[in-house]
Structure formats: structure tokens, C-alpha cells
């Protein structure tokens, strides 16, 4: 992977990140807005995600029916995502067709219509999206964990929003949210692929620079106070399978401790891929928790997730409890394994192995231009692109002592929540 890229800030504050990659005749363009569920006050939860949906409902120049077809006709792939910290829209197109994506994004940064009948039909679509998620036991448990983990900080609520708010948010609320946060000075445009940066920048200036900047959007600054002791919760619902989640409060991804925590996750639960597109993962059968919990048949699966976020969030381990054991037995064996990594420094060899795994996952992700354009902008949402470029280097710098300290500092019972999903269709072993 080459590390050359160009960075520009237009007169209206729009940050442009460009990376030339000539491996395939493809360009991927992403527009990022610094607005996610963490800026939603109660009463308006889920509004950022709903606005993302409304952005596909058209402008006077590109009505929904036109917008809908234009990208697909050119063989493009497009979509959008709303997260805790950001909302993003992307198009990956044959390189000679990317101008359409740029025109479209410049247009819908300011001209989306938000027609009342579209708001009405999309209300039931976002409710349906939530209902589909509620079918999943791990969504129900994850939502309860998030709510318990954050009493003050707006990471408290699910990105999809609460049903009460999805029923009551009005058209003008959505439009106001759009107008407040969709501003060039609150956005990053990241483009990677088969183009020449100079010509690309010129075209971006023509399309985007005339959009006036706005006043800095309001932020909900409600940091979570430090936690004082372990929280435990249970969720009950349909199913035959018991799940156990353990979430530890962790610092923001820009914090230096994020890197020892990444290596720690790799040792405990196996390497996690940073790739949003392409690449695939690596199995975790030789990770410490797999050997201690799955090989010993206390659990049937384990997965670790250290989310990449702008503010302090959570490191979550999700375990599927073995039908012959209880979640309490599993938790006790889990705690033994955590204690081991806190008490004894990990061998350097185990860390070296984690670095090689991360390097392989990086190589897999670099096959994919959409994935590269994603990271070019995504890293700007919580740190900077340098964070991504130096990621492997920072992991390689983690020492056994760093790792042990991170385990001691963060994997404390006082710093965690433990949640169990109890299925109502069966019972745990006695």
C-alpha cells in the first residue's frame, strides 16, 4: 500500500483527502459529516440515522427516482452509514463516471427536499429497521449494555433511536437537523482510486467551494464520569441460547492506550479486522479465551470488539454460553484468564504474532479501493489519517509491560458491565 495522499481545506472549510490508486479503473468517493447519534438529545434519538435515509429521497435536481437510478446505471455501488460519531455517504464507480457522484453529493449537501409524504413513508421504514434488529438477541443485549454503560454521555442510546422518538420526530425536526449539521465546514470528502489529484481537486472546487459555510454546529458535551463499580444486568427474550457480554470502559481511539488495548484484544479473542470492505477475517482458535473457554466447552464462541470512536467507549467481549454450563461458570473462567494476563507479562513472541496478523489483515484490506477511501475519511472523524498510516507501527511499539499495564488499568471488574441474555424458551443447566 502506498502512503501518498493529498490534503486540502477549501475556502468554505470542507476538508478534501485524495489518494491516487491505479490498480483498477475504479474511484471511491466518501463524504463524511461530523454528526452521529452522540449529538442527539433525548426526544430526538435516531434522528441522524433517519436524516441519512431522507438524503436518498431527492432534491429538485435529482428527484428520488432519478437519484435512485443514476448511480446504478453507471455500474456504481453506493450506500450510507450512520454511526455514534458520524454519518457518511459513498459511491464507488468506474473511474470515468465518478463526476456523477461528486455532483450528486454537492447537490444533496444543501438541496434535499424532505417532502412530508416521504417523511411519513420513511418513518415506518426506520421503525421496521429497528424491529428487524430487535429480532436479534445480541441487539437487545447490546442496547441494554450501552444504556447501562452511559448514564450521562449520549453514547447512551442506540443509533437507530428509541421507538418513542421514531414515532414523534416531525418533518421540521429532520430538516432542521440536516440544515444544522450538513455544512462544508463540518464535512470531509475522501476519494481514492484511479484519478489525477490535480484535476480532481479542480473539479471538487467547482462543485463544492460555492456552498457557503455555516456556523459551527452545536455539540452535546456530556462526558461520562468515571465509573464506580461493576454493573450487572439481564435481558430476557425468545430463543434457546444464552449469551454473555462483558464490556470494559476504554479511552477514545486517539488515546495512546488504544494500541496496547488492540493487542490485548488480539491475544484474548483473536485479531479483529479494521477493514470495512473486503478482506475477511482470521479465525481465533488459538486465542487465549478460545483455548480457555471454548476448548474447555464453557462457551461455544467468543468475539472481542474494540470500537473505533471519538469519545471513550467500550471494549466488549461477546460469548455464547455452552448449553451444558451457566453464564456464572463461564464468567468465572473468563475472570481467571483475565487475571493471568494481568499477573504475567505476555511473551514478546505472542505480541509479535499479533503484529503479523494485523499486517496481514492490512494487506487484505488494501486490495479494495472502497476500503481505502473509507479509511482516508474515517480516520479523520476521530483522529487523522496519520492514525491509520501509523497504525501498524504503533502496534509494533507495544511492549509486554504496556500490555500488562493496559490489562491492569482497564480490565478491572470495577470498570465493567456484565450482561446476560436469558432465553425464555429453555433453561440454563442447573
Amino acid at each position: 500500500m502506498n502512503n501518498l495522499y493529498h490534503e486540502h481545506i477549501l475556502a468554505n472549510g470542507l476538508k478534501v483527502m485524495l489518494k491516487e490508486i491505479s490498480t483498477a479503473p475504479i474511484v471511491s468517493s466518501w463524504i463524511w459529516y461530523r454528526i452521529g447519534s452522540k449529538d442527539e438529545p433525548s426526544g430526538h434519538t435516531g434522528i441522524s440515522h433517519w436524516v441519512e435515509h431522507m438524503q436518498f429521497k431527492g432534491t429538485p435536481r435529482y428527484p428520488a427516482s432519478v437519484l435512485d437510478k443514476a448511480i446504478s446505471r453507471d455500474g456504481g455501488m453506493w450506500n450510507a452509514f450512520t454511526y455514534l460519531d458520524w454519518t457518511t455517504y459513498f459511491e464507488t464507480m468506474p473511474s470515468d463516471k465518478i463526476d456523477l457522484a461528486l455532483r450528486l453529493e454537492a447537490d444533496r449537501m444543501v438541496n434535499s427536499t424532505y417532502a412530508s409524504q416521504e417523511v411519513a413513508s420513511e418513518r415506518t421504514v426506520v421503525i421496521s429497521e429497528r424491529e428487524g434488529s430487535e429480532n436479534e438477541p445480541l441487539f437487545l443485549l447490546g442496547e441494554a449494555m450501552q444504556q447501562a454503560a452511559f448514564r450521562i454521555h449520549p453514547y447512551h442510546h442506540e443509533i437507530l433511536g428509541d421507538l418513542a422518538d421514531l414515532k414523534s420526530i416531525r418533518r421540521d425536526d429532520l430538516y432542521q437537523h440536516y440544515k444544522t449539521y450538513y455544512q462544508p465546514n463540518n464535512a470531509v470528502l475522501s476519494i481514492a482510486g484511479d484519478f489525477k489529484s490535480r484535476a480532481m481537486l479542480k473539479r471538487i472546487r467547482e462543485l463544492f467551494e460555492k456552498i457557503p459555510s455555516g456556523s459551527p454546529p452545536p455539540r452535546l458535551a456530556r462526558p461520562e464520569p468515571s465509573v464506580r463499580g461493576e454493573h450487572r444486568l439481564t435481558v430476557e427474550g425468545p430463543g434457546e441460547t444464552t449469551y454473555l457480554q462483558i464490556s470494559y470502559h476504554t479511552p477514545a481511539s486517539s488515546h495512546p492506550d488504544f494500541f496496547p488495548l488492540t493487542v490485548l484484544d488480539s491475544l484474548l479473542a483473536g485479531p479483529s479486522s479494521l477493514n470495512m470492505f473486503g478482506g475477511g477475517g482470521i479465525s481465533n482458535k488459538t486465542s487465549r479465551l478460545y483455548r480457555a473457554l471454548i476448548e474447555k466447552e464453557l462457551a461455544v464462541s467468543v468475539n472481542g470488539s474494540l470500537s473505533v470512536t471519538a469519545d471513550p467507549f467500550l471494549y466488549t467481549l461477546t460469548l455464547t454460553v455452552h448449553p451444558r454450563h451457566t453464564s456464572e461458570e463461564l464468567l468465572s473462567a473468563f475472570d481467571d484468564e483475565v487475571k493471568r494476563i494481568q499477573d504475567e507479562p505476555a511473551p514478546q513472541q505472542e505480541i509479535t504474532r499479533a503484529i503479523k496478523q494485523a499486517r496481514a489483515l492490512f494487506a487484505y484490506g488494501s486490495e479494495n479501493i472502497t476500503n481505502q477511501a473509507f479509511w482516508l475519511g474515517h480516520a479523520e472523524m476521530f483522529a487523522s489519517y496519520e492514525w491509520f498510516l501509523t497504525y501498524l507501527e504503533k502496534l509494533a511499539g507495544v511492549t509486554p509491560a504496556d500490555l500488562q499495564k493496559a490489562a491492569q488499568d482497564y480490565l478491572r471488574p470495577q470498570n465493567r458491565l456484565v450482561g446476560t441474555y436469558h432465553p425464555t424458551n429453555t433453561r440454563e443447566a442447573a
Partner: protein
Amino acid sequence: MSPKQKPSRKALPSGLPGPDDTVRTVLPNGITVLARANFNSPSVVIGGYLQAGSLFDPDEKLGLADFTALALMRGTERRSVQQIFDALESAGANLSFSAGAHTTGFTGRSLSEDLTLLLSTLAEALRQPTFPAEQVEKLRAQLLTGLSIRAQDTADMASLTFDQILFLGHPYARPEDGWPETIQAIHRKDLVAFHRRHYGARSMIVAVAGAIEPQQAVEEVQKALGDWQNPDQPEPPALPPLNPLKQTTVRKVKIPDKSQSDIVIGTNGPFRKDPEFMPASLGNSILGQFGMSGRIGNVVREKSGLAYYAYSSLSAGIGPGSWEVSSGVNPGNVKKATDLICKEIARFIKKGVSEDELADSQSNFIGRLPLSLESNAGVVNAMLSIERFDLGLDYYRRYPDLVRSVTTEQVVLTARKYFNPDLLAIATAGP
């Protein structure tokens, strides 16, 4: 080194695979090797299959082929499960197996420096598995947990029930991962016997794409698997004829306390090798794929706001395929959504498609090709399709012409051949 062996930098501007940059070799023991280079990233992907699918499973031991595939790396004559995975995972490599109806497939990836490790692990798992009893029981518990999760998944259960209606009396009605009672009925000796009889090099395919010269990839496969023989390997069983639906058949699976129901509505589709495949594929795009999921998406999601997802899909393979519409809706809206979908299917058959609609989907199929072939995994899948369905090494070069040659008339005739609004399979799963 001939120019043919350094393709990726000299390929056509489109970068589409073709006979000049894809190597295809049949080894003396019957393994077909396909390879194409891509030096853009220091990684490789392998994929392939052998003729050992769930068609060989007895009804009472359904899931045997899949269980066998998943147990291959749980211990071999040379190494324990921990040793096998320690080597793979330490290299950041991945290898996995699973069974379909016709074949047992594998897929793996690694840094190109570790291709030898990947291929030697593949060979060891295929040729020398020991199925340690303790590991078999651990795996069984994992499979059973997977099946109890499946039983609670509205989309999985609607899809499984749809296949049971559509393929009544045909092996395609059976889920490849079996049922709890059939997984319980499988003994270690069944795995050993299935492996001994059905695993072999004859008609096996291995495809390699990535940062390696194709000829070298062929040599690596030859080294790992070139001397593998199994004279007892049987011919794949013939598929029985399909029993066509005699009337629209509706079946509901009750899964209590769920907040959403899933619906699958459809009919049979063409074989992949049928000439109707391309017209059906384009018709399917218009019906429920193009843009935000075609006409179905427009009616069910955009206009009615009934669902977050509503789309159609065409599954075409070695045998008869299926052509279906899927959607997830509030349990109170199942009837409304079903009626809308059936109405849209009826309109599709009666009125056909417009020239503009067809042109849009043709343009989409051609335009998206470079994107689907951008990664090593995409190229491996393309090479495997070429081989499985005899498409020819020049298929992706001919593809734009194949797509453009389809007419609106062919689309409507194909739709009418398969879809009859009075003969639909309708499956729902929910509370």
C-alpha cells in the same frame, strides 16, 4: 518468463480476466488448477471444491457432508487442532471448509509469502484428517447451538421453509446443515467413512489469485496435491426430476415473541447453464435489484414504507434454481406486503419490462464488472464460476456483449416460463 505470466500490469485497461492472463491446467490426478496474478497487494486467495456434497447424505444423517467438512482441521495424522491453527493464525492466514448440495468447498487467504503454508494445510486437512472423538463432540455441540440459533432466525426459517415447499421430494428441499436430530445421529465413524469414500482429487478444482506468478501457483498446488488419489471416489449422484408446484402453497413457521416477520415468495428458476440464465438475471434485476432494489423495493419500501428490506434474488447453479422475493415486515403487515409482492410479480409477468428498464440494468451489469473483480476473492469466485459452469476463460471479456444481446422479449418470455402468479411458494416466519 513469458509475458503471459506477468498479466496484471499488462492486462487490458478494463483488467477483466481472460485466456491471456488466466492459467488453467489439469493435473494428472484430475485436479483442475486456475491461477491469475495480481501484484497490487502482497496477498493471495485460494478457493475451490471437490465432489463431496450433501447429496450423498442419507436423510437420517443429513448434515454429514457439512459436519465432515467442518471437522477436517480438528486434527490430522500430523498435528492437533491447536497446532494446525497456531501455524495458520500466526501467519495471519485463514482457511475454512463447508459443504453445499453438490460440493464441499474451501476458501483461504494469506500473505503471498505464506501460500505454501496455506496449500500444505489444505492438503493435510483434505488427505489426513483423523476426526479425534473429543473434537467431534465439541464440534457437534457448536453445530447444535448454530441450529438452535437458526430455528430462531426469521429470515433463515422463511428461506428454509420456502425451499421445502418449492423442492418438495427433491434433495434441494433439505438444508445442508441438517436438523438437530440428524446431527445427533451422526457418529465419528460416519465422518471417517464419508471422508474415505467421497474425498478425492477427481474433478477437484483449485483457484489461486494474488501476488504470485500463475505458473508458480500451479506448481505449488501440484506439490501439495498432485499425488492424491482415491480410486473409490463415486460419481456424483444424478438429480431426480423436480415435482412442479400444483397450486400456490403457503406455509408459516411460528417463532413466538419476535418483532418482525420474514416473507419469501417465489418459484423455480433456470439452471446456471440454461440460455435463459442471462435474461432471467436481467429480469430479476428489474424486478427486485436495480437501484434501491428494483420494482419490489419501490413498491414495498419506497412507496408503502412497509419494510427496511425488500428485494428479489435468482439462485442458479448445477441443478434447478429458485427465483424469489424476500422481505422483512412488521408481523401485522405480512398480508399487506404479501399481496403487494404478488401483485408486482403478476404485473412483471403480464406487462414485461420496458426498453429503458432493460437498458438500465444492462448498463449496471456491465459497469459493475470491474468492481466485482477488483479483489483476489472476486477473481477466485469468477474463475470458479467459469470452471463450474463451463463458461470459457474468455467469459468476462464476452460478458458485455452477452448482456447487451438480451431483448425485452427474451426477458418477458423467461419470466413467464418460470413465474406463474397462481403457482407460487409462499413461506413466512414470525410470531
